[in-house]
């Protein structure tokens, strides 16, 4: 089989698909906006549910990319494409052009910018951080407050920018609940004397080994789970974060002071993903992600023949799902190229 496929995005989805396509004899050009591949995984320290180091995923992706059929182009951001006859022309923001027989969009997601939930005080109070900030602290193996002291009471706020009409995101980001559980355990290991709380609306433990990890967080690490949406956070004179929540199961409002508050930022359609389709030809869902042709049978297929999707540009996904989704995309791309010629 012959053909050339342009893969937009060098994260987990894009690289996995590129590797599989290359081994099927297809020429692949992977276009990555950053200087290196890996996407969001590069910013994570370890991964649920087995707490594998994220560097193992990066190593795996690098191996996938090692193939003569693959050309990696970094530092180029795609902003628009058109189709003429059976081939595609893609333009990058620096003015370069790329040509291919098929396009696989693997543009991923953006993390919700937590400062948009102003009532939680990110960017206002020193010790309100995001889940991504905490990962980089884990990497440094040092969890410290802004004043240099170790936190004793730490809270996780679930659903920041997810399931929230006020943020314009009605959907569940799916990964934040288990990430909070994983990070809560990580914190207890680094600071065994600390008290850790998770404020949740619903614990959505739908993945393999998620529920087991939730149990472990309760049983082995003594993490407290309080069911209620945090309404607001303020800083008192001692620099503690006064957190207001309704303890919905106790049926009363609850107030608790925290040293450190971690906001579990959700996933959104990426701005750079939107830019690929500057003229708005591709269908989008109410969640603003790219809408596949069919949620059951065509989750990798777009409304334009020859344009395919892989990974979190279509919906929030974990790494396992992203890899499976990318493999599915490869099958659809190969079908398309076979029947085209």
């Amino acid at each position, binding site marked *: 089989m012959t053909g050339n496929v342009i893969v937009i995005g060098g994260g987990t989805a894009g690289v996995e698909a590129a590797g599989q396509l290359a081994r099927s004899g297809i020429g692949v050009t992977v276009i990555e906006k950053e200087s290196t591949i890996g996407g969001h995984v590069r910013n994570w320290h370890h991964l649920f549910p087995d707490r594998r180091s994220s560097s193992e995923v990066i190593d795996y992706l690098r191996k996938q990319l090692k193939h003569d059929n693959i050309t990696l182009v970094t530092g180029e951001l795609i902003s628009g494409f058109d189709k003429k006859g059976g081939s595609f022309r893609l333009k990058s923001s620096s003015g370069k052009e790329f040509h291919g027989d098929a396009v696989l969009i693997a543009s991923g997601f953006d993390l919700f910018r937590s400062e948009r939930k102003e*009532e939680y005080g990110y960017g206002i109070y020193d010790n309100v951080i995001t889940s991504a900030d905490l990962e980089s602290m884990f990497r440094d193996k040092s969890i410290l407050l802004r004043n240099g002291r170790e936190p004793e009471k730490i809270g996780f706020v679930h*659903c920041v920018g997810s*399931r*929230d*009409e*006020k943020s314009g995101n009605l959907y569940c980001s799916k990964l934040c609940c288990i990430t909070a559980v994983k990070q809560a355990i990580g914190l207890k290991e680094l600071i065994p004397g600390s008290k850790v709380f998770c404020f949740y*609306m*619903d614990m959505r433990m739908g993945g393999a080994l998620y529920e087991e990890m939730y149990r472990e967080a309760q049983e082995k690490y003594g993490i407290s789970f309080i*069911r*209620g*949406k*945090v*309404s*607001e956070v303020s800083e008192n004179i001692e620099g503690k974060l006064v957190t*207001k*929540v*309704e*303890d*919905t199961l106790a*049926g*009363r*409002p*609850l107030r608790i002071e925290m040293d450190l508050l971690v906001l579990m930022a959700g996933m959104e359609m990426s701005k750079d993903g939107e830019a690929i389709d500057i003229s708005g030809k591709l269908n989008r869902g109410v969640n603003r992600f790219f809408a596949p042709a069919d949620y059951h049978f065509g989750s990798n297929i777009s409304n334009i023949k020859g344009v395919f999707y892989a990974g979190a540009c279509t919906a929030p996904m974990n790494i396992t799902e992203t890899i499976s989704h990318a493999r599915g995309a490869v099958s659809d791309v190969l079908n398309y190229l076979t029947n085209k010629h």
Partner: protein
Amino acid sequence: MNRFGYSLSKARVIDYDANNHAVAEYIAEKEPSFRLCIACGGCAATCTTGNFTEFSLREINILIHRGENRKPGSDIRKCMLCGKCILVCPRGVNTRNVVITAREAFKKFGINAL
């Protein structure tokens, strides 16, 4: 007739079939966002009234949905209609209008404990 001092205690169960659902239906018809509540308690956490008195919009909402109208019928008076709960609600429930409509409904169906 002998009176032994015993009586039947009312069961604690929510007798869903026997309960009056007219209030819930009335509110849902006039303010459809009433149906969207997921009982997260954001409204109750921010509520000034709830911080000082026994008042929880989350509880009121769930009880009305079950047809348990007695407590909400009395509690609903306490709301000052400040609307902070609207700012918090992740489901976009028009909470203030729910309260106003609930008051109407309690009056209409003669449940108001006022």
